[in-house]
């Protein structure tokens, strides 16, 4: 799957989980940029992303993700 496509799917997941249709993530978006993106929602987001793409993240991997772009790249590597 292309990165652009993954980013679009991740956007949809964020909009659904955070209940905010105006969210528009880019590759450089971080938790700082989205009000509702706190610790609890991070768990929800990761779980949704894992289920949607049928992948699994280790805690170490989650810790190293610096922005949405890295999340998408990690998903791409896992589903390849």
């Amino acid at each position, binding site marked *: 799957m292309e990165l652009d496509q993954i980013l679009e799917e991740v956007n949809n997941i964020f909009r659904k989980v955070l209940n905010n249709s105006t969210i528009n993530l880019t590759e450089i978006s971080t938790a700082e940029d989205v*009000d509702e993106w706190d*610790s609890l929602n991070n*768990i929800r987001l990761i779980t949704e992303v894992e289920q949607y793409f049928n992948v699994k993240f280790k805690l170490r991997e989650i810790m190293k993700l610096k922005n949405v772009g890295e999340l998408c790249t990690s998903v791409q590597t896992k589903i390849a």
Partner: protein
Amino acid sequence: MHKYNLISQIINGIQNHPNRNAFFIDGKHYTYKILAQYVSGILNIIKQHTGQAPQCIGILEGDNIETYASLLAVLFSGNTYVILNPHNPKSRNKTIIESTDIQLILHSDEYDYNLDVPKYVNQLSTTKVESKNILNKIDIQIDTDSLAYIIFTSGSTGVPKGVPISHRNLNAFYAAYSSLNFNLNKEDRLLQMFDLCFDVSVVSTLYPLTLGACIYTVPQNSVKYTHVYELLEDEELTFAAIAPSLLSYLQPYFKEIKLPKLKYLILTAEASNWDLLSQFMPCTPNAEYVNLYGPTEATIYCTAYRVDPNHVDTYNGMLAIGKAFQSMHTIIVDENLQEVPKGKKGEMCITGAQLMEGYWKDPSKSKEVFFELDCFGEPTRYYKTGDICFVDEKDCIHYCGRKDYQVQIQGFRVELNEIEHTVRQYHPIGSNVVLAKPNQLGNQELHLFLEKYKGEKTVLMDFLKEKLPIYMCPKNIHGITELPLNSSGKVDRKKLLELV
């Protein structure tokens, strides 16, 4: 120099360990010498802008060395620090600034943030203020009756309550905390994960400095659990005070976690679920767990329970809160303020050297929470904590829950009335009720039930975000035709909770 004078011991720590690391902030180490240079630079600024009489000085919080140095400089100057959180609504910070008559605010340029303050307030940057002085000749004389800090907590009338803590309170706390005999020294690495508006940050910041040890900070308003875990593992921290909810976030990953260097895990700010802790224990094979309890009004912590995994005292699955600190005394009373027998539940009341004098400029609120009882033949002032507790046959105190409509959200004590009051400012028609319910991770989450509201929920949410700190904004808004009432005509909160 008094052994239990906290400020003197911090100065000792700074002077005796110039080349050791004091802080690790955002990936960078700062030695005690560098810290001292920042502190003396900021002390100079404070001296230039203040008079002889102690006053409140605002500090705009950031995760940087300037913020921590400002906090120390205000304490060393004999003034009182008041933390202003840049993520709080402007109106809330304005209320705090006005009520404490702040005339000087120290900030670190970190945020593009305009405070809504009167023109006479000086807002000074603390960046680029390093001085060559390293506190060698510093002469500090602090009146122990003067105030060290004022922390604002949620108030039911929509106005935050100020809790003033004196140096006398802080020294009593320091003596009691030291007597817990944690085996710590200058080699230790300690976590500071709390917002500076929350009083556990005071001990997480000040105590390590007395040892010459290093403090590892966590940025606020971030996805905290990953940051905390990263520090615990990568920096091999030896001491961590955390809110138990942090562990619930990490629970899916317990199997991956190994922290053999951790010596102490302090559980605080919320009730601690023993089941969750026992699952976490294999991750920390060399750590002792200690549950610490205390209201802000009695200076950070005032009871301690050391966990012996083979004989754990719990109630409803929650860890006991243990016994009172050395200079504190606790009693459990009924509605008539009469002490109840052992094993019976009642409201816990506390007295002792750590107890504040009264809320900041709020005698009526103070009157509500204090009462006098004869203790050892002397009339003694007790503080009603609002916490329902009982004492077991081993004289161990157990926490059962809150008496009123206060809840703990992310460690912050929240008056649900304050949120309801704020909702009414926007939507005065009909009633509204805010309730807390544990989410799927067991952490409290706020629900707002609102009568006769036809507007957009997001518009109301935006209004609340303008007025309240983010942790006080309800996660869920439920429109309802009419709030259900119970047989005595009061809102049936149980029924409402069943709806979500």
